[in-house]
């Protein structure tokens, strides 16, 4: 009857000071929840980023750097140094290990948003996050030559709805470039938010990219030669070149062999990358931001623990008589130390439990909002091993922080003796 009795004393003593203890517990729980929440969102953001394009096994483009290829083909940042000839594309598509291909043609823009020429397969094969499909919040994929599908950010920023007209500008400038005003597009569909570059992209068919340039040469309209939209509809278009290709392989392992053989493609210099690997490389470049989040977490929990230590220390003066009584009935300094440490430990454990409850409450409320506004889907799962480790570390830190008031309690009790005349 020497260890557990102290714990039961600690619990009863805490219950006796419900208000201050409750507020302290709440503050500690909120800081623990923030740490857990930040960790969770960080993990999900990383996962979501690493899966910006999770459907394709390979991305193929003209030979350059893997991050450069990733940046222009997936993030629409920067430009391709070179194109892939249509012939090479067809050869790759015909390889035995290839399950599907989605050609992509970049180079035009629409009021600051990139225009991507592709096939309807893009909407089928593109996956993001945890293998999530693209969804249409309105309309459907392009059907007509001059149909366009817009990402959710595009629709929101430009106020586009299904049926609106879109004029594509040649080149990538925001304004003031030559436009393809003679061949306007019609919005056939609007995509739901994904949290990926898809949101900021205007999709048209590959043929449309060729069609709007049919009467152009070397980047400007051929004088005196203007072919109207209706006439163009009658024509057949086969692209001469595309910018990049998304490739799906029949087996995951086939991707490695295919990657090697594409990299040694004899007809032209090509580069095939595994998007997951390249995305990981890119994420690692942003390691500082991740570190900053971790540092903030540490400070948040330190603030919470400081609050608890302050409460326990402030309470010691009011509890001088209580501690003297305990000492008079035989509590040794180590018992008083254990009492205060047990109070800190109990508070930490209770706060950890409350933090988990708060966390799930917040996620239940925030999940649809985060998904709709940021395309960040937080999967609500039971606490991971990592979560429990973080919680365990915070409980240990809380108990250790209790050593300061515990030590003070011993000092005070020894100085006070048995009779406190206050």
């Amino acid at each position, binding site marked *: *009857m*020497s260890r557990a009795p102290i714990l039961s004393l600690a619990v009863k003593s805490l*219950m006796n000071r419900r208000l201050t203890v409750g507020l302290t517990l709440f503050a500690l729980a909120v800081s623990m929840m923030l740490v857990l929440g930040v960790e969770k969102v960080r993990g999900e953001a990383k996962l979501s980023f690493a899966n910006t394009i999770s459907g394709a096994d390979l991305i193929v483009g003209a030979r350059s750097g893997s991050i450069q290829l990733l940046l222009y083909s997936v993030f629409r940042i920067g430009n391709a140094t070179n194109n892939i000839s249509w012939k090479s594309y067809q050869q790759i598509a015909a390889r035995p290990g290839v399950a599907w291909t989605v050609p992509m043609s970049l180079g035009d823009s629409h009021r600051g948003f990139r225009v991507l020429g592709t096939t309807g397969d893009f909407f089928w094969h593109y996956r993001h996050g945890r293998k999530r499909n693209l969804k249409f919040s309105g309309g459907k994929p392009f059907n007509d030559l001059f149909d366009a599908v817009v990402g959710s950010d595009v629709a929101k920023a430009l106020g586009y709805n299904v049926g609106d007209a879109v004029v594509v500008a040649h080149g990538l400038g925001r304004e003031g470039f030559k436009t393809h005003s003679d061949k306007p597009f019609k919005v056939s569909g609007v995509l739901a938010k994904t949290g990926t570059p898809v949101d900021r992209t205007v999709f048209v068919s590959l043929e449309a990219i060729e069609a709007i340039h049919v009467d152009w040469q070397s980047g400007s309209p051929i004088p005196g030669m203007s072919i109207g939209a209706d006439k163009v509809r009658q024509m057949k278009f086969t692209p001469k070149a595309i910018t990049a290709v998304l490739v799906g392989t029949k087996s995951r392992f086939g991707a490695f062999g295919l990657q090697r053989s594409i990299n040694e493609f004899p007809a032209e210099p090509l580069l095939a990358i595994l998007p997951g690997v390249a995305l990981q490389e890119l994420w690692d470049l942003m390691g500082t931001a991740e570190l900053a989040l971790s540092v903030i977490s540490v400070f948040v929990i330190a603030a919470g623990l400081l609050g608890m230590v302050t409460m326990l220390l402030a309470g010691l003066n009011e509890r001088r008589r209580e501690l003297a009584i305990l000492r*008079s*009935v*035989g509590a*040794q300094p180590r018992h008083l130390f254990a009492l205060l440490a047990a109070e800190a430990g109990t508070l930490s454990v209770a706060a950890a439990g409350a933090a988990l409850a708060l966390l799930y409450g917040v996620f239940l409320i925030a999940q649809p909002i985060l998904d709709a506004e940021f395309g960040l889907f937080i999967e609500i799962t039971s606490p991971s091993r990592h979560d429990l480790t973080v919680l365990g570390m915070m409980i240990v830190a809380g108990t250790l922080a209790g050593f300061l008031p515990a030590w003070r309690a011993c000092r005070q009790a020894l100085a006070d*003796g*048995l*009779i406190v005349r206050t």
Partner: protein
Amino acid sequence: MPPSVVQLSDVKFRWRPENPLTLDVPGFELTAGECLFVYGPSGSGKTTLLNLVAGVANPEHGEVRVLDQSLAQLPTAHRDAFRSDHIGLIFQMFNLVPYLSVVENILLPCRFSARRRDRAVANDGSLDAGASRLLGDLELDFAGLGSRTVSELSVGQQQRVAAARALIGAPELIIADEPTSSLDADVQQAFLDLLFNEVKQTGAALLFVSHDRRLEPRFTRSVSLTDINNAVTPSPGPQLSP
């Protein structure tokens, strides 16, 4: 001659090295079964005497023996354990831990002393039975009060609970520091009756400290602190030392 329970020989004590002596007692003894009344005005060294006998303070000179054990020879932790095994303490007021029930308060010494716990179980069969018997002896109703929190009790009831706590597990020495000064006169007498009765049953020694000499006739022996403490001048003026 009954065995000695408390023995002070040539004890000198001061709270700080720069302060004058608070206590200078050439000799003092309390034997088993004795009920000793120690009186003196405030500042005569009552608190100091209790702290020395309870082993909370150490004399700079001389020796304090309790149950033939020299307290100075025990390390602090052992002195605390020794106190919880052999000494029951009752203070003037606010004796009880506010967040524990009446029974939990009474059984507190049994949390820290296996000896007291074993003796309580040996005497009464179980801890609850021991607490119940003491409450009954002290004319408190176990069923009605046992699970109450102590803040619901009157001061007189609180002091009886404190007495029950000092008596549980039959320690050899009961130290009472002005336990009746916050009680009404008739409650005082009843409290003393109950205390004497219990002490007689267990054969413990009672060291009762008070400034109120009206209680003196009821004790077997009485000692004036101003007589035995050479550090105090017999005609005390206002003093500030503890």
